[in-house]
C-alpha cells in the first residue's frame, strides 16, 4: 500500500505543508467535529468530567488484561465462536488466510479495521487471489485511489468533493458530479452488490464485552452490519487491549467514543455480535472467528510509563485538534495510526529509532490530551520518547539519536555553570556574529554543526550589551538603562 512508510515523514510532511487543497479538506473536519465533541462531554454531566470515569474503566481493564482476555475467549467459545490469539501480524494474517481457504472464499468485504491496515491484510488477501473490498465509504474511496486511509475514523477526509467526483467518474464509469448525496448513492449501488455476494466478512471491533462474549461494533453507514450479517463467515480482528469487561463498562466507553469520534450522542448502529447464527436463525454467518492480536502490545503493557497509550479507544479525536496533523495530514505519518496517537503508538510498535520523526514532529501543545475521551497523556509520552532518543534506552533498544546534539547540550550545560567561561564566550560570540548573514535583523544561518537549527528558521542575534552589564550600569546611575 502507498504512503505506509514512517521513514518518509519529513519528505511527506514538507510536501503536505504546501498542499492548500489538503488544508481546506481538513479544516472541514476540524470545524464540524472537533468543537462538537467538547460541548457534548459537558452535556453528559455538568460539573463532572466524564473522561475521568472512562479513563478509570480503561485503566481497570488494561491493568487486568489477562483476566479479561481469558473470560472473553471462554465466553466466545461457549457461544460457538472460534478464538485465535495471534502473537504477530503475520500470524493473524495467516489465520485469516486459513479460514478463507477453508471456505473457498473468492471475495471478502471488509469494514473499518485499523488493525487490518497495521498488519497489511488486504495485500495478503489480494496476493492469495481473493478480491478484497472496503465497504466503508471513506475506505472505499481511498482503496479505489490505491492509497491508505489518512484519518482514523474519516479515512478519505483529505479529499475534496471534486476529487471524489473525478475518481468515481473514472472508476465507476459514472457521469461526473461533485454532489455528496449523488456520490454516496453511486457507492451504495456499487457496494451493495459486493456485500450481498461476498463469502467472507472481515471487520474490526470497537470493543468487546468479556462477560457476555460479544464483540461491539459501531458504524453509521450500516456497512459493518452488512459485512457481518450477509457473508457465510465473519472474522473479527481486535487488538488484545480493546476489550471491556462488563455491560456497565460499555455505557461510559461507547458514549464517550461516539462523542469524541463524530460529535454524536450515539452512532446509528451499535451492534453486539456474539458468535455465529444459532440453528433457529435463518440468517447470520455460519462461522464466527475472533482474532485477538498482540503485535507489540504486550511489550507496551510491560512498561508502566507507556501502558496508558493502550487505554486509547481509537476515536480519532486527537487528530481533529492537532495543529501538526492539520498541517501535514494523515499520510505523512506513514502508518494507519496518525496524529498524536500515532506519534506515540507507531514508534512503540515499529521501533523508536525508526519512527523518531513522528514523536519529534508534534508540538506538545496539549490539545490532544484535552480532547481525548479517556484523558490519555500523549504529551507526556511524546516527551518521554524524545528523552529516550536523546539519552538512549536499553529496554526499548533505543540508540542515542544524535551524538553531536548530546555533546553540544553537554557543553552548554558546563558553560552555563561557569560564569567566566560564559562571559568570555558571549563576548566572542557578539563579535563573531557580525560575520553571519542577516535578514530583518535576524541571523539567517548559524555556523558549523549549529547550522541545522537555522535550516527552517532564523536565529535572534545576541544583544550588543548583555543583561548583566545593563543591570550593573543601572545600579550605578540608580535609573533604568
Amino acid at each position, binding site marked *: 500500500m502507498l504512503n505506509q512508510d514512517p521513514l518518509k515523514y519529513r519528505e511527506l510532511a514538507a510536501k503536505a505543508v504546501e498542499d492548500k487543497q489538503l488544508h481546506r479538506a481538513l479544516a472541514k473536519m476540524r470545524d464540524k467535529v472537533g468543537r462538537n465533541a467538547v460541548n457534548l462531554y459537558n452535556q453528559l454531566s455538568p460539573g463532572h468530567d466524564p473522561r475521568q470515569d472512562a479513563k478509570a474503566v480503561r485503566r481497570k481493564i488494561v491493568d487486568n488484561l489477562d483476566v479479561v482476555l481469558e*473470560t472473553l475467549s471462554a465466553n466466545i467459545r461457549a457461544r460457538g465462536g472460534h478464538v485465535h490469539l495471534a502473537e504477530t501480524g503475520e500470524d493473524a494474517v495467516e489465520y485469516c488466510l486459513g479460514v478463507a481457504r477453508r471456505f473457498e472464499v473468492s471475495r471478502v468485504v471488509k469494514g473499518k479495521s485499523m488493525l487490518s491496515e497495521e498488519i497489511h491484510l488486504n495485500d495478503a488477501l489480494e496476493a492469495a487471489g481473493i478480491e478484497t473490498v472496503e465497504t466503508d465509504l471513506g475506505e472505499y474511496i481511498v482503496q479505489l485511489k490505491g492509497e491508505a486511509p489518512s484519518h482514523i475514523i474519516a479515512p478519505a477526509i483529505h479529499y475534496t468533493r471534486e476529487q471524489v467526483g473525478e475518481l468515481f467518474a473514472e472508476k465507476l464509469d459514472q457521469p461526473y458530479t461533485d454532489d455528496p448525496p449523488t456520490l454516496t448513492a453511486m457507492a451504495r449501488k456499487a457496494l451493495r452488490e459486493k456485500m450481498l455476494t461476498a463469502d467472507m466478512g472481515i471487520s474490526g471491533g470497537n470493543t468487546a464485552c468479556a462477560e457476555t462474549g460479544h464483540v461491539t461494533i459501531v458504524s453509521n453507514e450500516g456497512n459493518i*452490519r452488512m459485512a457481518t450479517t450477509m457473508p457465510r463467515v465473519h472474522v473479527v480482528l481486535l487488538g488484545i487491549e480493546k476489550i471491556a469487561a462488563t455491560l456497565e463498562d460499555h455505557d461510559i466507553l461507547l458514549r464517550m467514543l461516539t462523542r469524541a469520534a463524530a460529535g454524536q450522542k450515539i452512532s446509528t448502529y451499535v451492534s453486539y455480535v456474539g458468535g455465529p447464527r444459532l440453528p433457529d436463525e435463518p440468517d447470520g454467518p455460519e462461522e464466527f472467528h475472533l482474532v485477538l492480536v498482540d503485535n507489540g502490545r*504486550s511489550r507496551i*503493557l510491560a512498561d508502566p510509563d507507556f501502558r496508558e497509550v493502550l487505554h486509547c479507544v481509537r476515536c480519532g479525536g486527537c487528530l481533529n485538534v492537532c495543529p501538526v496533523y492539520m498541517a501535514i495530514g494523515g499520510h505523512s505519518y506513514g502508518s494507519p495510526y496518525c496524529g498524536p496517537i500515532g506519534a506515540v503508538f507507531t514508534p512503540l510498535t515499529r521501533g523508536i529509532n525508526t519512527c523518531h520523526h513522528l514523536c519529534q514532529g508534534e508540538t506538545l501543545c496539549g490539545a490532544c490530551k484535552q480532547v481525548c475521551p479517556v484523558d490519555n497523556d500523549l504529551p507526556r509520552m511524546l516527551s518521554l520518547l524524545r528523552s529516550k532518543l536523546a539519552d538512549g534506552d536499553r529496554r526499548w533498544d533505543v540508540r542515542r539519536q544524535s551524538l553531536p546534539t548530546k555533546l553540544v547540550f553537554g557543553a552548554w550545560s558546563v558553560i552555563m555553570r561557569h560564569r567566566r567561561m560564559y562571559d568570555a564566550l558571549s563576548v566572542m560570540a557578539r563579535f563573531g556574529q557580525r560575520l553571519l548573514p542577516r535578514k530583518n535583523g535576524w541571523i539567517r544561518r548559524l555556523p558549523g554543526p549549529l547550522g541545522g537549527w537555522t535550516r527552517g528558521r532564523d536565529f535572534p542575534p545576541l544583544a550588543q550589551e548583555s543583561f548583566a552589564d545593563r543591570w550593573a550600569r543601572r545600579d550605578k546611575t540608580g535609573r533604568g538603562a
Partner: protein
Amino acid sequence: MSRIIERVRQALNVQANDGRDRLVFAKSEEFINCAHATVTDEERGGWMESIRREAQALNLQVHECPDLDACGEAIAALARERDPEWGTLKRIVRWSDPLLDELGLEGRLGEDIPVTTVPMADSFGESERAEFRREVIASYIGITTADYLLADTASLVLLGGRGRARSVSLVPSIHVAVVPGSRMLGSYRQMLSRLNGQTLPSNVNIITGPSKTADIEATLVHGAHGPREMHLFVVAS
C-alpha cells in the same frame, strides 16, 4: 494456556487470576438498580418529547398511533405510497412477532404487495436460508418491532433470535419499527442494566435513525449502505 495470556501476565507482573476477577467484573449498585427505576407519567411524557426532538436531527420519522389498527393502516398507506429502490416489484418482509401479526398488513395490502414473515423453525437448511435471503433482498420495506425504545437518543434496541432475522432491519431500503410506548426507557445505561445478567442473543442491534455517512467533506448524507429511510411507530395502547 495461550502464550499471549502468559505474556500479558508477565507484562503485568502477576501470577494468575488470584481473585482479581471480582474487581474487574464488579458493578455499581446504581447500575444494577437503574434497571427497574420507577418512572412517573410526567417523566414518560418528557421521554416522548425527547424522542421527537432527537428524531428530527436524525431524519427518523416518528408516528404516534392510538392503537395497532391505526398503525397498520398507516403502514399500509406508506407501503402504497413508496416506490422500491431496486427493481419494480413491491414486497415486504417482517419479523414474526405477535404484535406485528395484529397489524393485519397481509389483509390490508392484499395481493398487490405480498408480506413475508420470517420463517420459524428449530433449524434451517442451506436452501431455506438461500430462499429467505432472496426474499429479504427483494423487499423494499422491512418491518420489525423493538424490545426497548431509548428516550435520550431515540434509539431502538433489537434483540435477535427466533423469528427476528438480522437482515430485516438492514437490507430493505425502508425500515419500519413498531413499538408500544410502554417499552420506553430513559437511557442507554438503563437498557444495559436490564440486559445485565441475562444470556444475550447472538446479535443485538441498537439502531438510531436511518443509515448515514459523512465521509465526503464531512457532509452528512442519509442512506449509505443500510436503510435510507426509517419510520418509528409508537403505539399508545
